């Protein structure tokens, strides 16, 4: 590889990028829009569900149970009732989303180990339902043998104890993942389109007729995007800390190292797409083939463990899945990058495979 030629390709690419207003706007705009959307508007974890309570026992233990439930922040007391029927009515009218019934024989049930309370939920919204299921996990601190098992819910509710995010603030979980989503969306698209655009405009025919090598051309073209990817990471992270008070438990250098791995993985994938796509439109379509499964299967939107095995296999191939494990580990749990080495390795292998395939498939010929 000739450094002068490589430098010339990089300089050319940066100059073109600087004049490409639409792309520049996307570099800043996509992270901002997604961050604000996911941070404020799309709230997958609920807080402040209006609740009604019918505490027919009214003992100190029953009141403590209700207070524990309120303390989670998931529910907000809206009405106090005396009978379960009142709650059912309020539920039907939509006045409350959730009702808690504590029967008069609460103490007796508690000692017998029977169900002590019932959580009634407006099941038409699955997100609300899952919030109720979690609420049903609130333990009774004074009675270790007793269990609050709701009558209307599954007898074995999935135990989702929000250990690192006790306040159930979604931004804490979403923002680190959003770095990955944004890098996946922009990095793959930018590189895929950057090369196909040259082919469409006829620049490629000129370039391949010069002594510039395949590696010089490809590395030179994607190198400026590495810088852009790191800028985007900084933007999302900065806004996340500033607007949503996301705590960064791990080391910043590990965060950037993880981001760098994902950037390189996505750039190599973009290069591979660019060798196959005939037009910019096709490159965009191919990008979407990767982007949609990444969003849906990586664990960004839905928990990974809940997916069927086939979906999990697909997810294991996607760089975003591994990045999410890395970034959540580093930012939320304070893990070091190398403690999470299996995902680092997976990303490294992905980069090596995609980059080799891209260089092999890129011919300095027109046929």
């Amino acid at each position, binding site marked *: 590889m000739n450094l002068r030629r490589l430098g010339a390709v990089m300089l050319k690419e940066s100059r073109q990028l600087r004049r490409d207003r639409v792309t520049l706007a996307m570099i800043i705009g996509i992270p901002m829009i997604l961050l604000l959307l996911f941070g404020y508007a799309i709230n997958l974890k609920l807080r402040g569900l209006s609740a009604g309570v019918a505490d027919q026992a009214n003992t100190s233990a029953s009141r403590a149970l209700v207070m524990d439930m309120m303390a989670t922040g998931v529910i907000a007391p809206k009405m106090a009732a005396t009978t379960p029927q009142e709650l059912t009515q309020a539920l039907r009218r939509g006045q409350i989303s959730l009702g808690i019934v504590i029967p008069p024989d609460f103490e007796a049930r508690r000692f017998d180990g029977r169900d002590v309370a019932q959580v009634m939920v407006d099941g038409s919204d699955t997100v609300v339902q899952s919030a109720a299921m979690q609420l049903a996990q609130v333990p009774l601190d004074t009675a270790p043998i007793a269990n609050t098992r709701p009558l209307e819910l599954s007898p074995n509710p999935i135990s989702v104890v929000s250990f690192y995010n006790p306040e159930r603030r979604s931004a804490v979980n979403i923002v680190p993942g959003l770095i990955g989503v944004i890098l996946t969306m922009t990095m793959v698209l930018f590189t895929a389109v950057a090369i196909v655009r040259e082919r469409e405009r*006829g620049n490629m025919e000129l370039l391949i*007729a010069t002594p510039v090598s395949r590696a010089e051309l490809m590395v030179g073209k994607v190198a400026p995007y590495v810088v852009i990817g790191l800028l985007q990471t900084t933007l999302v992270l900065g806004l996340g800390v500033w607007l949503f008070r996301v705590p960064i438990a791990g080391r910043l250098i590990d965060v950037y190292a993880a981001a760098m791995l994902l950037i390189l993985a996505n750039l190599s994938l973009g290069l591979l797409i660019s060798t196959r796509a005939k037009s910019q439109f096709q490159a965009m379509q191919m990008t979407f083939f990767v982007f949609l499964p990444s969003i849906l299967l990586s664990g960004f939107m839905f928990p990974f463990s809940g997916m069927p095995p086939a979906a999990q296999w697909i997810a294991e191939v996607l760089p975003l899945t591994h990045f999410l494990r890395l970034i959540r580990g580093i930012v939320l749990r304070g893990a070091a990058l190398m403690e999470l080495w299996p995902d680092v390795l997976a990303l490294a292998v992905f980069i090596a495979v995609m980059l080799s395939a891209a260089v092999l498939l890129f011919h300095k010929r027109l046929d």
Partner: protein
Amino acid sequence: MNDGVVNDPNIVIDARGVTRRFGDLVAVDAVNLTVRRAQVYGFLGPNGSGKSTMIRMLCGLLLPSAGSIQVLGLHIPAQADALRLRVGYMTQKFSLFEDLGVRENLEFLAAVQGLSRREAARRVEELLIEYDFADRQKQLAGTLSGGQKQRLALAGAVIHRPELLFLDEPTSAVDPESRRDFWDKLFDLADEGKTLLVSTHYMEEAERCHRLAILDHGRLVGDGTPAELIAKLDGRTLRVQAADLRRAREALSAAPEVAGVAQIGTALRVLTHTQASPQRLQTSLHDAGISADVQTTTPNLEDVFVAATGRSRRAGEMSP
């Protein structure tokens, strides 16, 4: 024989039986070509005749389906990488970067072509002046006029002082005056000892070439100097004047000895398959009830083109 190295240093391009197929379509069909040093060699042919495909194969950008190619003594496509250092290629479509300035484009090409920093700086200055861009250095290439774009593309193609230049229809989107200036530049380059292979579909450009190859449907249908090619048609071109040109033309088109008829001003220009006697044609027109005056006239390159391809004159009739 075909694989032997061409020892004559004056032969720059030697192609034997070069064929290129795209699926069922034969874009270039068993073309033989010999181009000598310091010539301006023209490729004349209608659109889709295989000119671009042939040029791309000679540059090593397309693999030939059959045949052997030697350019500057190098076997193509095997030694295409070595060839890239020694040739310049100007694509049919403007292929410099429209979102880079004039100077930025040249600087990029200089670096990519392997010129050292100092050498590149000197060469770019030189070309900016020589190609008349001194006061437009910062202008984005996309905002240049058609003629300026072609001039810039040529400057880019010669930045590393190649021995051989391939130019694929360099003047297709350029006004006549810029075209003449452009061709003057090409001859300056030939005078410096460079060899140029230029494709075109303009007769007046083809006429200026030292030597000419005519392509039609991928086949080489004519090869020689313009004068040689024209001389072959001596006695086969006639000028017909008649009162009713339309009827005269119908009668001539139906005649078996006529290869092509076209209306030029108030007369018809007729090309025959073999040497034709004007008297006989006049008599046969007279027999058909058309009084006409038929005279032999000097052939030109357009007649050569019609004789070789046998169709463009008719196409010309469709759109006067």
